[in-house]
């Protein structure tokens, strides 16, 4: 479209600002819902990919009945404390197809006295066999943790060098882990021997002693020699070791997908409903505009404008309305999601890691283009009818 036609288009939109704003408002709501939905879906998938990759385990063996608590701890970092006999680790290691195992001990802290940490989830890992924290430790620190040192997840408020007190024992934060968007971000990692010392010390130092049955562990992380054998090894563990349950990354992903579909279950029908209403508004609006402006377009054509230019003027109006409404909607969707992010994630037990800026921009552009495209499609029929009217007909009659 030539610059003069853009000016004409803009002038036409501003001629009836209320009508234009009403049409743009519908598009804005569609774009906001679509963008927020797309952003959440992308962020949840990103978090699951990064989180499970960081966990590094092909399977997790936990006490029977602790599956839900494990899911919440893995996904949201919700503190959990359950225990099973420590010999389970050795039993799992003996099963064919298992490459390595690493036991972990879970501790739920007391509510922190200092503002505002709340309860925290502590994981005691075995430095000799660990494959979740150890690779990161080796790369970033180049050494093992001392007994009074801890690593904290990215969302834990303490900074490196600061100290944190759990059950009366002081620990020094050595470093913060990179964000994963999963429960690991809310977790504190320390050597399993430090957990035992802390439990011992809690008898005299803490408000409430930490009780962990001697020789017990909370989970056993398992790495397989061949990932294709996952189903067989899972069945074998559950069959041969009584009182345990096996959690697989697939189950975690399935659980998250189920929770995500709970959110999308109401978000998508809203988007669909608003989309239908917006399309109807656009159809009615552009039918009215075409009818109202057939005389003006007839005159333009009589003065030498081509049918294509007349169509371009109307479709340009639709594209501009759709595009601007879509752009504002993307901004609104982003702002609303940023404001309500924590509430949504907690309510639906969803992990979330912000997608890269490029992915967010691409999603925004896709939503704006979709809005502009739908607006053009809705305006196409009246525009086509105008294009096929002879100038003198357009001047002397209105479109019905």
């Amino acid at each position: 479209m030539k610059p003069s036609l853009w000016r004409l288009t803009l002038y036409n939109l501003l001629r009836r600002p209320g009508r234009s704003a009403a049409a743009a408002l519908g598009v804005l709501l569609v774009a906001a819902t679509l963008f927020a939905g797309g952003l959440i879906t992308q962020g949840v998938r990103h978090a699951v990919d990064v989180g499970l990759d960081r966990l590094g385990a092909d399977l997790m063996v936990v006490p029977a009945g602790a599956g839900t608590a494990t899911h919440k701890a893995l996904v949201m970092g919700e503190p959990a404390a359950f225990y099973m006999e420590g010999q389970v680790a050795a039993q799992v290691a003996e099963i064919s197809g298992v490459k390595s195992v690493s036991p972990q001990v879970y501790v739920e802290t007391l509510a922190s006295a200092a503002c505002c940490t709340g309860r925290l989830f502590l994981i005691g890992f075995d430095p000799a066999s660990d494959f979740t924290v150890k690779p990161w430790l080796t790369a970033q620190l180049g050494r093992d943790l001392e007994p009074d040192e801890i690593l904290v997840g990215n969302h834990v408020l303490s900074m490196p060098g600061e100290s944190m007190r759990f059950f009366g024992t002081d620990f020094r934060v050595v470093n913060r882990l990179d964000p994963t968007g999963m429960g690991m971000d809310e977790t504190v990692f320390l050597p399993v021997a430090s957990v035992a010392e802390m439990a011992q010390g809690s008898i005299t130092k803490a408000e409430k002693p930490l009780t962990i049955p001697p020789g017990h562990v909370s989970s056993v992380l398992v790495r397989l020699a061949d990932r294709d054998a996952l189903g067989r090894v899972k069945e074998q563990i559950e069959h041969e070791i009584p009182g345990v349950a096996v959690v697989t990354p697939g189950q975690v992903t399935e659980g998250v997908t189920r929770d995500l579909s709970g959110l999308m279950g109401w978000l998508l029908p809203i988007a669909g409903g608003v989309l239908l209403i917006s399309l109807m508004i656009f159809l009615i609006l552009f039918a009215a505009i075409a009818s109202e402006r057939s005389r003006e377009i007839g005159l333009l054509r009589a003065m030498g404008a081509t049918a294509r230019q007349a169509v371009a003027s109307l479709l340009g109006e639709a594209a501009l309305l759709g595009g601007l409404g879509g752009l504002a909607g993307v901004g609104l969707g982003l702002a609303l999601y940023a404001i309500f992010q924590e509430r949504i994630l907690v309510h639906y037990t969803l992990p979330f890691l912000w997608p890269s800026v490029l992915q967010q921009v691409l999603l925004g552009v896709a939503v704006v283009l979709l809005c502009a495209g739908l607006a053009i499609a809705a305006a196409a029929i009246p525009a086509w009818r105008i294009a096929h009217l002879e100038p003198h007909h357009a001047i002397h009659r209105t479109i019905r």
Partner: protein
Amino acid sequence: MSYVSENWRGLAALFLGVGTVMACHYFLDTCADTGTFATLANGSQVHMVCSWSERATEGVGGLIAIMGLISLFMKQSARALSLAMAASGVLMILIPLVLIGTCKSPMMACNLSLKPGVLVLSGLITVVGLVGAGKLGVRMSQAKVA
């Protein structure tokens, strides 16, 4: 022109101001509302930072309601009061984000309830204030031209 369409700026300010006070007081949770307090070294429990954000927001909400009332009775001040309402909205945005803040952990009750609620209300107040002032500005410039 009906009373509502003539006085919508003042009525909106009154409604949003009172709404802010009511929402903060009765509906939006601070950590203290859910029974979470900070414990000092001497063992006494005190309100956390979010409680003070709530009180400051209630104060600004009350001020906006008063501006709405003034605007209903002193029509010539409507544009200035709309601008002041928009500025108050920005102030309300800054209270939980910068000036006073909320508790540090994103999972605390105040960050799940008070902060998002206040941000939405203050966004609305800012937009309504700007639209009110803008529309009056257009009307005044048209009157000048005429």
